C-alpha cells in the first residue's frame, strides 16, 4: 500500500519508519519520516494500532458492566475516567452523590493524576537518556498505588468510582498511607527537579523544541497541561467546577513558550498542586468511625436464622462478603435512585433486598436512564476527558463517545516535527504523553 508520504517523497531522501514497536513510541504509534540527512522534510502519522473497538463494545454492554472498559481508556489515570463516566451518568439520571463520596473521589482522582504525570515524565526522561529519573518516579508511584490498592483492592485499573458514589469506604489507617505517599512523592519530585531542571543536556533537548503558538494550540483543540504550557489558562476544574473543587484552593500553572520544557515544567508544578489538593482533601474527610466488631456470621447461618419467625437480632454478615457494610452505604453511595448494587445484608436477609439485587443485574432492568443525550467532561491527566452518551431508555447506551484529550494533542505532532531533526521527535512525542487506549479507543 503506497502511503501519502511515499507518493510525494523526493527521490534522493531517505524514508524511515519510527514504527509501532519502538521503545519511544509507546508501542502503538507510528511516524513515517522523510529525511534529508538528519533533518525531517516531511512526516506522516499512522495511528490506530491499539484500536480495540471500545465504542462498539459499549453499545453491547449494560451501563453497569461498562466500568471496566472505561478504566482502560487512559490506563495511566484510570480513576479519572471512572469519575468522568460516573458523573456523566449522574448528570443524565439526576442523582446526587453524598458529601463523603465526593471527597473520596477528589482524593482518588488527584492521586491518579500524580501517578499519570509521574509515568509520563518518567518515560519522557528515560527516552532522553535520564534512566535514574525513571526509577525515582516509578518508586514514588509505588507509594501512590499503595494507597489506591489498600482502598480499592487493585493497584491500577480499579473500577472503584461507581455510578452514584464509590465502591467502598477508605481503608483503616488511610491517613498515614496518604501522608507517606505525599512525603515520598515530594522527595522524588525534589530529586528529579534537581536532576533535570537545569540539566544542560535536557535543556538542549527540550527548550525551544516542539514549540507551538497559542492560536495553533487552540485551533488543534489542545486542552490540559499541553494547552497550559502554551500559555492558555483553561482547566476544567476551574472553568466548570465539579465535586468539591470550588472549595479547595489550588493554582493552575502556566508555561510561556509552549515547548517541550514548558510541558515538562507545567506537569511538575501541577503535581505539586495535586499534592496540595490531596492534603487539603485528607484534612476535610472525617475519619470513618471504627467498625463495631460484632459477631459476624456466614450467609447460610443468616438464612437459617432468617427462617425463624423473628430472628433474635439484626443479622450482621461477615465482612468478607463483597459490599456488605450496610451501615457504611448511606455515606458513600446515593440513595436517590436504584442505580446502586443493594448491600449484601439486605440481599441475604430481606425479600425486597433479594428482589432488588436480582433486578439490578437482570438483563433489561439494571440502570435505565431516561431517553436523551448528555455531555460532561472532567479534567483528566492529558486534558478534558468528555463523555457524550446517547441513551434510548434501555439498559445499554445507544451511543457512547469519549472525547480523548491526547487525540487532539497528537494531531499537531506532524506540524511540530516538520523541519526539526530526528532526535527531536522523541522529546516532543514524550512530552505529549500519548496513551494508546485513549488515542485509538
Amino acid at each position, binding site marked *: 500500500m503506497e*502511503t501519502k*508520504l*511515499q507518493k510525494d517523497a523526493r*527521490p*534522493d*531522501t*531517505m*524514508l*524511515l*519508519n*519510527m*514504527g*509501532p*514497536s*519502538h521503545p519511544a*513510541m509507546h508501542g502503538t504509534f*507510528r511516524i*513515517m519520516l522523510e529525511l*534529508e*540527512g538528519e533533518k525531517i522534510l516531511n512526516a506522516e502519522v499512522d495511528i490506530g494500532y491499539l484500536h480495540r473497538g471500545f465504542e462498539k463494545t459499549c453499545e453491547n454492554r449494560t451501563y453497569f458492566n461498562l466500568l471496566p472498559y472505561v478504566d482502560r481508556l487512559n490506563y495511566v489515570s484510570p480513576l479519572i475516567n471512572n469519575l468522568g463516566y460516573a458523573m456523566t451518568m449522574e448528570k443524565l439520571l439526576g442523582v446526587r452523590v453524598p458529601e463523603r463520596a465526593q471527597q473520596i473521589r477528589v482524593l482518588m482522582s488527584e492521586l491518579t493524576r500524580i501517578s499519570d504525570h509521574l509515568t509520563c515524565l518518567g518515560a519522557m526522561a528515560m527516552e532522553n537518556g535520564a534512566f535514574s529519573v525513571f526509577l525515582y518516579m516509578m518508586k514514588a508511584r509505588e507509594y501512590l498505588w499503595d494507597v489506591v490498592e489498600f482502598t480499592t483492592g487493585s493497584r491500577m485499573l480499579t473500577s472503584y468510582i461507581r455510578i452514584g458514589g464509590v465502591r467502598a469506604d477508605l481503608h483503616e489507617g488511610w491517613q498515614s498511607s496518604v501522608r507517606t505517599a505525599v512525603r515520598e512523592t515530594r522527595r522524588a519530585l525534589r530529586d528529579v527537579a534537581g536532576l533535570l531542571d537545569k540539566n544542560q543536556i535536557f535543556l538542549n533537548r527540550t527548550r525551544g523544541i516542539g514549540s507551538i503558538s497559542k492560536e495553533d494550540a487552540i485551533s488543534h483543540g489542545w486542552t490540559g497541561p499541553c494547552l497550559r504550557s502554551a500559555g492558555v489558562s483553561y482547566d476544567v476544574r476551574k472553568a466548570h467546577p465539579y465535586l468539591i473543587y470550588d472549595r479547595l484552593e489550588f493554582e493552575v500553572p502556566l508555561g510561556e513558550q509552549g515547548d517541550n520544557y514548558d510541558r515538562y515544567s507545567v506537569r511538575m508544578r501541577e503535581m505539586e498542586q495535586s499534592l496540595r489538593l490531596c492534603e487539603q482533601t485528607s484534612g476535610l474527610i472525617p475519619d470513618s468511625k471504627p467498625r463495631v466488631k460484632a459477631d459476624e456470621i456466614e450467609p447460610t447461618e443468616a438464612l437459617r436464622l432468617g427462617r425463624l419467625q423473628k430472628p433474635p437480632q439484626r443479622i450482621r454478615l461477615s465482612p468478607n462478603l463483597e459490599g456488605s457494610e450496610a451501615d457504611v452505604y448511606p455515606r458513600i453511595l446515593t440513595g436517590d435512585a436504584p442505580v446502586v448494587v443493594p448491600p449484601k445484608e439486605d440481599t441475604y436477609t430481606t425479600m425486597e433486598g433479594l428482589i432488588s439485587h436480582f433486578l439490578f443485574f437482570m438483563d433489561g432492568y439494571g440502570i435505565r436512564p431516561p431517553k436523551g443525550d448528555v455531555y460532561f467532561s472532567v479534567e483528566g491527566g492529558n486534558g478534558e476527558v468528555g463523555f457524550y452518551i446517547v441513551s434510548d431508555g434501555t439498559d445499554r447506551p445507544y451511543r457512547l463517545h469519549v472525547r480523548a484529550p491526547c487525540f487532539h494533542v497528537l494531531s499537531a505532532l506532524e506540524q511540530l516535527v516538520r523541519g526539526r531533526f530526528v532526535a527531536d521527535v522523541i522529546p516532543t512525542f514524550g512530552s505529549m504523553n500519548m496513551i494508546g487506549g485513549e488515542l485509538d479507543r
Partner: protein
Amino acid sequence: MLALALSFLVFGLLALVMIFLNSLFGPRKPNPARERPFECGSPSLQTGIRPVRVPFIMIALLFLLLDVEVAFFFPLALVFRAHGPAALAALGGYLAILAVGFVYAWKEGIFDWS
C-alpha cells in the same frame, strides 16, 4: 616483554573463544524474514540503498583526512617530553600543512549546505 606477549596470547585466545563460542552453540534455523531489515516491525518504505548526496561524501572524506591526522598525535605525545621544543616545531609544521587544506575546503563551501 614476556609478560606482555603472554597477556596478549591469553586474552587474545579468550576473545577468539568467546566469539566462536556462539557459532559453536547457536542453533541454525535459517529464516527468510531475518534477511529483511528491521524497521520497528512495519514494512520498510523504500528498498535498496539510495544514492547519497554530494555534501555527505565531501564531509566524510574531510573527516577521514583529519581523523588520520589526529591519529599521528598519539606517538608524538609519548616522546613529547623527551624532545622538548623540537617536537613542538615538528607538530606545528605538520599541523600547518593540514590547516591549509582545511581552510581551502572551508572556503570552497563544504560546510554550508543547501
